[in-house]
């Protein structure tokens, strides 16, 4: 199970990073979502992987750590909200300038010389 979870995190992260480097809004947002899935699974695994164990005190002898589940819940809520925000802003920028590049427009004479890249 450790191998499965670890490789799932690895595949999600690499796919997310690849998509983020595309520098177009839509792939970048997809990559962002993959990265947040990866980090959610990673957070979940940070409390060690146990199957079928209760997270609250009972008669059981084996427990799973409840804290990472609370952390993941917070992280999911935040990343979901953030994705909605970035979709709205990205949509506004695309509709306004008819261009979905994430980096600064190269034809803009003011900013073109300052060499500001978009996301890494």
């Amino acid at each position, binding site marked *: 199970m450790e191998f499965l979870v670890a490789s799932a995190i690895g595949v999600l992260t690499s796919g997310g990073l690849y998509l983020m480097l595309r520098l177009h809004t839509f792939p970048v947002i997809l990559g962002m979502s993959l990265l947040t899935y990866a980090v959610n699974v990673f957070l979940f695994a*940070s409390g060690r992987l146990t199957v079928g164990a209760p997270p609250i005190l009972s008669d059981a002898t084996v427990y799973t750590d409840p804290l*990472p589940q609370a*952390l993941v819940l917070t992280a999911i809520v*935040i990343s979901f909200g953030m994705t909605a*925000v970035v979709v709205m802003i990205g949509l506004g920028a695309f509709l306004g300038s008819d261009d979905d590049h994430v*980096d600064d427009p190269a034809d803009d004479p003011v900013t073109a010389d*300052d060499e*500001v890249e*978009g996301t890494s």
Partner: protein
Amino acid sequence: MNHWIIAPVVLPALLAPFIVLAARYHIGIQRTLSVAGVLALIGIALGLALQASGGTIVLYQLSDWAAPFGIVLVGDRLSTLMVLLTAVLALFVLLYAISSGWDNRGRHFHALFQFQLMGIMGAFLTGDLFNLFVFFEVLLIASYGLMIHAGGNARLRAGVQYVLYNLIGSTLFLFALGSIYAETGTLNMADLANRVAMIGPEDTVGIRVAAVLLLLVFSIKAALVPLHFWLPSSYAEAPAPVAALFAIMTKVGAYAIIRVYTMIFPPQLEVTSGLHDVWLLPAALLSLAIGMIGVLAAKRLDRLVAFSVIGSMGMVLVSIALFTPEGIAAALYYIVHSTLAGAVLFLISDLVRTGRANLDLTPQPPVAGTALTAGLFFVGAIAMAGLPPLSGFLGKLLVLDAAYGTDLVVWIWAIVLGSSLISIIGFSRAGSILFWKAHSVAPLDSDPPQPRPATMSYVAVGGLVALLVAHTAFAGQMHGYAVTMAEQLFAPEPYISTVLDAPGKLSTPSTTGDY
């Protein structure tokens, strides 16, 4: 238990929805509520700072759960001073936003402003790493809204970059927190300090990864080169009062670095040795150099100011990276200075824009009110470039003094002094083009007369300048206080014992020794 310490978080958190729900169509009521809220914040922050100034650690356990099971808010000298600085900065920025009409060019400025304050205050006061993440997100969500306030294509495009870059930062933060939790089983800062010190030298892979990831996250917030690419566009395109408030946001990153790397990973800790002197210091020197070269190279005033913010963050981080009490004290003095100076310059760039078509550094006909604006720009530029007599010069002197005797002293002195020269040239070039060469351009009769900036705007900028002057005049007291702050940071035992030994629900008699 004293409940005042949570007031800087709760007050804006209650005020913001109230503004949205009860006053969304009345800009006058919104303004009144917002200013009243910030004034109350200043009062509370003053009280907290006075309470902590004697060296007491103010602890607040949410719902009375004992640390490390519950979330704690902790106020020591450093965090209460940062809270006070934020509240004072917010007042002048708010006055400027109201007088210049920026708050009325889009909706919900005041509500977002209060949420932003809530996030910043919480980030300064929290004693829990995951809670720090949550407050980072609160301040970022509010800042996304403020950043694209009043709309416009250029602003939206810069906003997309800003949001995406910070989302990557947040994801990295979560990875760092996950690895810290996997290694230590706690996220409370005081508890972490104890447990990280217990990790044996043979078993440090995970915690090293976590320490580096955390440093990366905070460096993104602090706009350290090469992680600074989000800053120039977004600060230049953001509405000027928002950019001025953002001057404190880069300091949140610097604050987090100071807090985490003096308490959890202190400089003498073997696990993270080499992190500050091999990596952080050269990167900070690089950002100082690149920021000031950017000042010289910028073709627009707002980008010039944005690059000067990067440069001054570089200066702050050079001083932090020394990780000596003198270095941290110099950094703390310089943080206050650089926040005020950055905010002043962003507001002045908006004063300049009031009479001009754009902020390009090209000669354009003179406009009404130039003399006063030029005078303020002169003072702001002196402060940011670090010339005498203002506090930038004293701060730089303290940094140079703290660096004297370290291994890299030649490099630090050369880059600090060289970049100062470059920034002086950059600022004087910008000032002479904007204000002096304007008189060589004949105004076109067809141009409609441009409006003057409101008097209240000058009062807001003048207030910040007066704070800078006070920061210079009382430099002895301020630096003395910074030294006591640094002493408190380098002796974290009272902090740790206050947090872990305070009784509360679930606390056991021997909380510190039973794992």
